[in-house]
């Protein structure tokens, strides 16, 4: 029983972090109907930036969020203007484009920093809180807590600010939003930039565990699994999906025979099952073009 609770808690801690990582992906899809397959690669890029600054300055990764987030925001804005803007109307092409950008990022990361494992180590690495017999690694607790704080800020931004309302309006009804004077183009660019900015914060938080360039496959499959599960475009859906994914991975690793080898299969299985059984996910609305009517 303690074992089970321990696994559950670790899964939830991971899930909180996943939720932040998935938020940008689902936000971008909701507003512009583009699945940014480079999201995982950008997340890994965020981790590399954190690692780079940390090695130069010794600063805590949790503080470096303040650096990586604006850097990735800028990158997202430029990336939107240069690439994504041109393929918005063509779903399959936008997946091909962002996938090829992911490959380029992977190649560049490997070229500069090689394919070795990297990890950020802090004074609290390898320290844990213990509650009863439950062990909570400090890094994971901090990462999860900060991820949830940032998600809270994102939520406030979306619900309480004019920009947030404009973003939600363009997601729900682009023509209507345009008619009441929202400039869809700049809202889309800002949304994409905000979506990519979350990979800055997320990248800093994942830098505690080891990563290397091709880790992005793991991340993008996981994040796609999460947003498909939660319903593509739904932020609250992504949150619940992320917690479920975190727990599912932890459970598979622990209880399935040879589980560690199959953990990476969990997101793919989730994607397959959800898209086939309930394509709109837990919270999402039907997206017409993704499913045949007959």
């Amino acid at each position, binding site marked *: 029983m303690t074992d089970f609770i321990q696994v559950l808690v670790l899964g939830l801690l991971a899930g909180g972090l996943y939720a932040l990582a998935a938020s940008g992906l689902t936000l971008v899809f909701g507003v512009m109907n583009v699945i940014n397959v480079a999201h995982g690669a950008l997340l890994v890029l965020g981790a590399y930036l954190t690692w780079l600054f940390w090695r130069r300055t010794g600063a805590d990764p949790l503080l470096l969020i303040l650096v990586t987030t604006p850097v990735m925001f800028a990158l997202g804005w430029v990336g939107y203007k240069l690439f994504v803007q041109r393929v918005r109307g063509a779903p399959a092409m936008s997946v*091909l484009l962002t996938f090829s*950008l992911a*490959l380029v990022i992977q190649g560049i990361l*490997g070229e500069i920093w090689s394919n070795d494992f990297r990890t950020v180590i802090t004074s609290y690495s390898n320290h844990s809180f213990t509650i009863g017999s439950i062990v909570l690694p400090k890094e994971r607790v901090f990462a999860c807590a900060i991820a949830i704080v940032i998600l809270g800020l994102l939520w406030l931004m979306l619900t309480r600010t004019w920009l947030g309302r404009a973003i939600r309006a363009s997601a729900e009804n682009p023509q209507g939003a345009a008619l009441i004077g929202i400039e869809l183009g700049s809202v889309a660019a800002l949304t994409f930039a905000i979506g990519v900015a979350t990979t800055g914060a997320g990248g800093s938080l994942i830098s505690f565990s080891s990563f290397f360039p091709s880790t992005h496959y793991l991340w993008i499959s996981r994040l796609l699994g999460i947003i498909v599960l939660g319903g593509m475009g739904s932020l609250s859906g992504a949150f619940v999906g992320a917690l479920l994914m975190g727990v599912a991975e932890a459970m598979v690793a622990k209880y399935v025979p040879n589980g560690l080898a*199959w953990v990476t299969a969990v997101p793919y299985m989730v994607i397959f099952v959800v898209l086939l059984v309930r394509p709109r996910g837990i919270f999402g609305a039907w997206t017409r073009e993704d499913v045949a*009517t007959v």
Partner: protein
Amino acid sequence: MTGPPLRRIAYGLFVLAATVVLALWPILNHDAYKQNVILLAFLIAVIAVGWNIISGFAGYVSLGQSAFVGIGAYTAGVIAQQHGWQWWYVPLGGAVAAGVAVLLGAVVMRVRGHSFVILTIAFLFIMRLVATNWTSLTSGSNGLSFPLARYPREWQNTPFYYALFVLLVLSVLLAWSVRRTKFGMGLIAIREDENKAGAVGVSTPAYKLLAFAASAIFVGMAGAVYGYYLSYINPDGMFDIVLSVQAVLAVLLGGRATILGPVLGAGLIEFISEATNDRTYGVAGAQVHIGGQWRLIVFGGLMAATVLFLPRGIIPTISEFFEQRRAHRRSAQAGVLDLRPVGLPATPRVVEGNGAGGRVLVEVKHLEKRFGGVRAVDDLSFSVRQGTITALIGPNGSGKTTAFNLIDGLMRPDSGEVWFDGERIERLRPWRRAHLGLGRTFQITRLFGEMTVLENLVAPLREFRWRQLAADAVAGHEAERAEELLDFVGMHAFAHERAARLSFGQQKLVELAQILMLDPKLILLDEPAGGINPTLIERIAEKIRALNELGKTFVIVEHNIPLVADLCDPVIVLARGTCIASGTAAQIQRDPLVLDAYLGEGWTVEEAVTA
């Protein structure tokens, strides 16, 4: 390639010459390195040609194509390790790959767009995980070794070269025959508009499953040969997404849905691949090998650039250029609609009991369709007698188009029944209804934009037979009939124009001719006069009347009341999803319920008439 004969001959000669050179290459040239490069280009070309069938023709973009290489290679490898190498492992690998592809196709049948691409990526990675974790069969990440080939060393890789060469020729022949048959026509119809394809009688699931099989079979065979050639395979190398990317890129560069584009593209890709793999940079005199990372950067970058700047590919961009020049010349000669009256060629059916006293052809009973909380169609009942031109009118949002969708099968009702010619059809798939004799046009025309007008006409299918798939796409009696129908609607001059280039009114005429190819008993017209000029409206009305005299029954949704009054009898009025009145146009115009539905309370007949 529809060009003047001279250019076609030149093109044919070029292809022939290239084929001969490649066939003789190992005999003429003994450079092992060059032979390997060409051999790998063959492999990418086979994958690309296969990808082109499912993704170029049918429009289902996949990034999992390289999985079939792995499946073929592992099928051969697993058996070869225990029983030694036999040549028939190659077709076996192809068969297994095709089987898996059909299975995948059946599972993802309803998924489109983004979700489809993502599923194919997931498919590739799941296959890789299976190969990695099913260690008792595949030895997992340790990989499998093939038995060594037993032929003289000085042959180098010539046997593999020829094996892949033959597979490439076969797969190009397959793609070519797919393109020129009904099968390929159906796939392109699916790419252009899958629901419409179903509505004109294409049984889309059968077509898609077959396309999956066709796209995988030679790739699986090539995988088996490739595995034997490598003599050692492992999951990461065999289920490599970069190989998928290269194949996709080959097709995008060469041209989607062309026959030889993928081969041309594959040649380019392999050339670039070698250039990046083996180029060595002198860094302070040292030779530094730059393999893997640059492969990602170069191919990722190339694919991004292609998607952004050359989305149609090399071959289509060039032929587009020529097409435009030709179109320029032709528009000087025959740019206008041919409005001369032409007799109807259709073989008239023997029609009994037409008109007001005729038997009931369509009966709709208590039909209901909800969208969330909205009841778009709510307890709708009406019947249509054979030989009539029945109008379906009503204010916007009264459920007219939804009723059409329920009758022709684009949507399924939540409850209620639809009877057509004595058969209950509300659960039948759209193509089954088309085969029964139901044709339908759309409010916003839905022609297959990339097809020519003539191809649009021969795309509809009046039945489904396996043999039919292999029939020529545009040929024989059918092509003649198509040309006659184009004459009938006055669009013959545009037979070889791409449908997307036509004006809206022209598209309406072509769409009418298109469904006439089904020789339907019942024709549903959704706003035939909407958005087109008055001369054309008159022309369309004339055609409808002519067809009706030949026994075709019409149901017409239309807002142009004078046209309805002139053409239709009876008129059925819908409001809020249900039938509120029916009768002759004159009766309807006096019906207070109808006036109320259209104009709201407070209006009187006199006001409406004077207004």
